[in-house]
């Protein structure tokens, strides 16, 4: 059964991918991309990667699609045909693909328990996490502690994106509340949005604090939090949204999140340990790990939420 879903999903992905190549309408392409992302998220669930699925759904299908739609709205909708025949690209792609397929021939089989990936470090993570970190979700323990430094890098990447969009698109605060006449008429949407808004924020907090036990964590929470505001902005106008969270605040939030994370790391040094060593944060190492993970997830969440909104504001404020 699992395999069947797998095959079907992969097939659908392929169809979507080809459709994206062929389609000329960029609006349609953006929507198809969203579908592609959602399909991958489903596939991730089938492949037991629930955390990834949640993130892909929120980031890939959610935020990315919004950005694409915003860009399509700003640029021309239709794609022009390429000037050159695509022979060279086709050749490059064929060669690359052939190389990769050649590489698969010696790969361990899909799902093979004897594959090296399941032997070395991975089994240790699964084995040691309960004792060393005390968190059931091993993804969280690896993400936040064993490879916490990658995650710091990841937050920095997001922060970079925020700073970059700030530099490229800037922001304009709206005095007047510009709102499409279309949306004003959509009473249903506005009512639903109003209902959903607190629920989404609540769910974000749940995802943030429940990340130790189930799928979720700072990233997903941050994105969901931002999505709530984006929905609000869509339904009630950018001006209103900006009145709730205005731009300078977002800048501060984006910076503070990274700083919280780094501060936890430096605190480890100051307490006589290594950088990002959470064990020294409390008397009991496991408690220290808990504390550390909680704090850094918070930092991640703040930065991600802030940067998502900075990016969104940046794109939307260009629509004049």
């Amino acid at each position, binding site marked *: 059964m699992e*395999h069947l879903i*797998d095959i079907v999903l*992969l*097939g659908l*992905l*392929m169809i979507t*991918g080809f459709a*994206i190549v062929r389609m000329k309408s*960029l609006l349609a392409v*953006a929507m198809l*991309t969203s579908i*592609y*992302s959602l399909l991958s998220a489903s596939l*991730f669930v089938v*492949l*037991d*990667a*629930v*955390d*990834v699925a949640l993130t892909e759904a929120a*980031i*890939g299908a959610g*935020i*990315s699609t919004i*950005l*694409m739609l915003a*860009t399509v709205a700003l*640029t021309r909708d239709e*794609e*022009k045909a390429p*000037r050159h025949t695509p022979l060279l*690209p*086709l050749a490059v*792609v064929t060669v690359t693909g052939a190389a990769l397929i050649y590489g698969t*021939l010696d*790969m361990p*089989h*899909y*799902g093979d328990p004897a*594959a090296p*990936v*399941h032997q070395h*470090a991975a089994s240790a*993570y*699964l084995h040691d996490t*309960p004792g060393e970190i005390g968190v059931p*979700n*091993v*993804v969280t323990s*690896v*993400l936040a502690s064993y490879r916490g430094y*990658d995650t710091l890098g*990841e937050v920095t990447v997001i922060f970079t*994106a925020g700073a970059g969009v700030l530099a*490229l698109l800037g922001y304009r605060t709206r005095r007047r509340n510009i709102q499409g006449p279309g949306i004003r008429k959509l009473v249903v949407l506005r009512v639903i949005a109003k209902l959903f808004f607190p629920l989404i924020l609540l769910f974000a907090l749940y995802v943030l604090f429940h990340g130790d036990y189930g*799928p979720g964590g700072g*990233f997903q929470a941050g994105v969901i939090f931002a999505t709530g505001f984006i929905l609000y902005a869509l339904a009630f106008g950018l001006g209103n949204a900006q009145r709730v969270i205005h731009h300078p605040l977002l800048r501060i939030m984006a910076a503070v999140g990274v700083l919280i994370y780094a501060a936890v790391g430096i605190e480890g040094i100051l307490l006589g340990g290594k950088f990002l060593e959470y064990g020294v944060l409390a008397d009991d190492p496991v408690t220290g790990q808990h504390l550390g993970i909680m704090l850094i997830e918070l930092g991640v969440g703040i930065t991600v939420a802030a940067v998502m909104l900075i990016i969104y504001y*940046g*794109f939307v404020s*260009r629509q004049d």
Partner: protein
Amino acid sequence: MTELLGHYNYWIVIILMMTGFYIVIARPNLVKKVIGLFIFQTSVFILFISMAKIEGGTAPIIEEGLSVYSNPLPHVLILTAIVVSLATTALGLALVVRIQEAYGTSNEDDIHVQDEED
């Protein structure tokens, strides 16, 4: 069934990756290129997650009564990579917006023509 699927997953994923790659290098529209990158990267994620899968395993959340879990490490890597992909997409699209404003087009060929005229 496992034997049949031995490499099936990987092959499809490779086709998906190449679809994205093709869009990037063959399509002149700047938005579409970014979308191509997005597809390319997302497909690479599937490759990683596929390798983390273990036959008969479950999601790597420790629970009583379960002993086989899929490998959490690729999941972690891909969480990071998804964020990187988002950052790239956001910056790429922001650049497209600026290019559209500066050139009045988001078609690569037209931009080349304008640059030649400068």
